[in-house]
């Protein structure tokens, strides 16, 4: 009955996470960088729901709901920060903040 294994869904989640990571590292637009973070959230959410389904309980879906909550909070705060940074330098380039040292 079950033709697709858990590995199929995990592979899709891993590929989405990797693509999001690449985008986060190499794009220079601040908004697109946070969009790639959301892409990584998508991969993790697919992994969690697939685990929950194949193990037959609701933990995966509950975790995914909390992932959505964190994603919403992160989006609001990050976009607020992006607007603030844009107001200061009038550009969305992440390299404009190169002088920040850790």
């Amino acid at each position: 009955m079950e033709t697709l294994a858990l590995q199929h869904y995990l592979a899709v989640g891993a590929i989405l996470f990797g693509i999001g990571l690449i985008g986060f590292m190499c794009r220079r637009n601040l908004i697109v960088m946070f969009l790639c973070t959301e892409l990584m959230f998508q991969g993790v959410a697919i992994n969690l729901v697939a685990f929950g389904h194949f193990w037959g309980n609701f933990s995966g879906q509950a975790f995914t709901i909390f992932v959505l909550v964190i994603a919403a909070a992160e989006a609001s705060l990050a976009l607020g920060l992006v607007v603030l940074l844009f107001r200061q330098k009038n550009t969305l380039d992440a390299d404009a903040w190169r002088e920040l040292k850790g």
Partner: protein
Amino acid sequence: MPTTLFIPAAANAILNPLVVMVLCGFAGIATAMMLPGRREASWARVGGVVALAVGLIFSALLIRYTATVSPEGMGIYFWVFSAIAIISAVRVVTHPRPVYAALYFVLTVLASAGLFVLLWADFMAAALVIIYAGAILVTYVFVIMLASQAAPDAATIAGQADYDDVSRDPLVAAAIGFALMGMLLFVIFDKAEGVNRPVKPLNHKVYVQDGSDHPPLAPYDGTTQQLGQYLFNDQTINLELASLILTVSMVGAIVITRRRIVSTDFGDEFVETPEPETLHGPATPVNDNPHSIPVYGTQNPRAKAYPER
């Protein structure tokens, strides 16, 4: 010693991990070619063709394995949804215009909602579409449009900003990303036999607690009602914490983007360039005229948020 361990594991695995590694390498090179940069457009096309070929080979290997395990019922919806999700995710990363990247992200969200439906998580699919495609993406598109209507001075002839056209270290980023992806796929296909427990989801039992020591068993149907019972019985504190996080982030977003007002002893008039440390004022504007609201963060209090044209 490692080879004797490696070969039987590779023979039993769904996919040969070496094949997965090689495919990830090719996909990394292709993605690095597709990323926006100062190259000819034909490079991006070649990269797209290579990435598509790698994806087709990968899915063909997976489909061949699936066909050997169970010939009937190939799960065509899974392949369609995951192909849409992955291709549009690649376009999110490689598209030079941010608005189109956001729209491709909507496509990714919709495709993964389809995958959630295939996993009997219909409530999660609806929540994903409503929250992501409905709320978060609208916020993103708003901010993109607000930021790009200001016409940054680095814009090139095509109206594209330089930071959108040229990506930063595409080869290094693709190498790191696909190294991580190759390791993840290696673990998934080579070592993850134990996690794939053959559970029949429709017959599996979950506990529904009603306060007694021996909670009654309810069949796992994956329905929204059972998910709600699980959330409000077993995850109550986490749910309250989630609402607290949402409230705090809402307040934080308002506080972050609030403009700060210079208040002086001379009424609503601005003084000549106070020190940056003295830039403070009440939370409410001293003057409702939007042309008199200074920009927060600039050291010049005469820089107005809405300059008069």
